[in-house]
């Protein structure tokens, strides 16, 4: 049955843009980009059990690297894309160090502080980021000489990235690394006694999660074609966290579902306006109270009954 749903969803994603106006395509592209960031966070939080409230900072770093280098530096897209990933990977690795010392809400606060600091750097260091004025006219790349300028073309590009990232994450989770992540989450001491280098895997979980945030950012910049500090404040980090948890943290398709609820549904339910956010908040609370494993955890339980 799972495969059937997957095929259906895939077919929908391929065909949808043909029937949608630019607005709908933009929202779908945004969904793909946010899902990539959420997949990264799911690796850190869901599989390795390390809470992070800094994912927005990594999306921001990725977006700024791409925006800055493709506009001021006139670089082609791909090197900036790789650099966005690499720089986030490196910074994520460093951010992992506090996680070796503290856990739970302490770790949440350390990462939260990091996010705030990165936001302030984006805003205050005008020589580097153009400050609050932002970087405009970020170009969209072309692929094999084929321009991705149009909304529809760029959507397929984002989708292709999402598929690529998903496959990589799928492979990672099934590899010995992924199993080591889960071992670190479930019982770090036992993992250590079994010879798993928990130190390295904790740092690795942070770094890879952050790197995917960077890829998400590298796509975000050419999608909106304008980068300024405000989207990368703490709000987005909380939002990504809610996406992962609501969809089902530790479930592979959790981030996909969570991003649908957080990115797509509000647009379809626009008529509900403020009530939508209230409903969303209530949903989060009810889920946490009764099914803390998220929507997929709930579905899992219902199916098994």
């Amino acid at each position: 049955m799972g495969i059937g749903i997957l095929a259906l969803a895939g077919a929908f994603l391929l065909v949808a843009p043909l029937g949608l106006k630019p607005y709908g395509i933009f929202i779908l592209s945004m969904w793909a980009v946010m899902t990539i960031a959420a997949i990264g966070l799911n690796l850190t939080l869901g599989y390795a059990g390390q809470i992070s409230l800094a994912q927005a900072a990594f999306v921001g770093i990725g977006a700024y690297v791409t925006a800055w280098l493709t506009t001021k530096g006139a670089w082609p897209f791909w090197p900036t894309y790789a650099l966005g990933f690499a720089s986030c990977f490196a910074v994520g690795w460093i951010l992992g160090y506090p996680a070796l010392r503290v856990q739970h809400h302490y770790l949440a606060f350390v990462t939260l502080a990091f996010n705030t600091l990165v936001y302030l750097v984006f805003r205050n260091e005008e020589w580097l980021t153009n400050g609050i004025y932002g970087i405009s006219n970020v170009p969209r790349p072309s692929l094999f000489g084929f321009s991705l300028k149009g909304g529809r073309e760029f959507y397929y590009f984002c989708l292709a990235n999402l598929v690529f990232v998903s496959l990589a994450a799928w492979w990672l989770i099934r590899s010995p690394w992924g199993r080591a992540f889960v071992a670190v989450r479930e019982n770090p001491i036992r993992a250590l006694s079994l010879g798993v280098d928990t130190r390295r895997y904790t740092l690795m979980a942070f770094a890879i999660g952050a790197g995917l945030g960077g890829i998400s950012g590298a796509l975000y910049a050419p999608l909106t074609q304008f980068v300024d500090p405000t989207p990368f404040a703490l709000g987005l980090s909380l939002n990504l966290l809610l996406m992962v948890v609501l969809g089902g943290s530790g479930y592979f398709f959790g981030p996909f579902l969570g991003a649908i609820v957080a990115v797509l549904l509000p647009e379809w339910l626009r008529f509900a306006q403020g009530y939508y956010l209230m409903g969303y908040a209530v949903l989060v609370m009810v889920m946490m109270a009764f099914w803390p494993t998220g929507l997929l955890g709930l579905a899992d339980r219902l199916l098994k009954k």
Partner: protein
Amino acid sequence: MLPAFFILIGTHTFGLPFWLAAILGGVATLILLGLAFKKVMVDPMIHHGVLPLVIATIGLAILMKEAVREFYGADAWPFPALWATTDVTLFGAVFAVQSLLILATCIVVVGALQLFLAGTLTGRCMQAAAQNPAVARLLGIRVERMILYTFLINAALVWIAALLVTPIYLAKFTNGEILGLYAFIAALIGGFNQVRGAIVGGLLLGVIDNFCAVYVSSSYRMAVPLLVLIAVILVRPQGLLGRVEERTV
């Protein structure tokens, strides 16, 4: 933020005099933020661990914020001051009456809280329940009830804080975000299991925050309390005055 709006609803919508609205707002705060928060949110969630509770609290914050925005509007509102906004001169320096009275109220409230926790039977039972629920239960303390008391006290303190700061800060639906964060950081820095800890944390945070804003760079001001927090967390995770708790492995 919420108590301030309860009071505003009282005065604006029902035309109540301010003191009556303030008292009713206090009762509503106790019921909603104390009783209901404990019964509806914390009780079912506490066995799932800390993370779901934290996330649910984020959800609750969104809900309260959006409800105020939807039903009361996104504008800021002026809020009546409890005391006249005049200045007095003491020892050659000018003080605002408002600030002095806020300070006095804080000292009284903190003193009362300390007396209650250390000097009364209920207060000591509450401490016992917090430190070791299992043993407390063995000794015949009704742990559930004690936890409920802490939530009620918390709600009452929130109400007092709202009455004190809203005349200066104005009532707005986003007010809770920053202030709540600061309060939480202050408690973490000072140490969670101590009233004194929270006060030391709060004072330290306030002083550092203001000194940095004046002498260093105000554009990086937001980061300073957080950096202090990181330093404390990494060096002394139990807080400056906190006692070491057993940590789950």
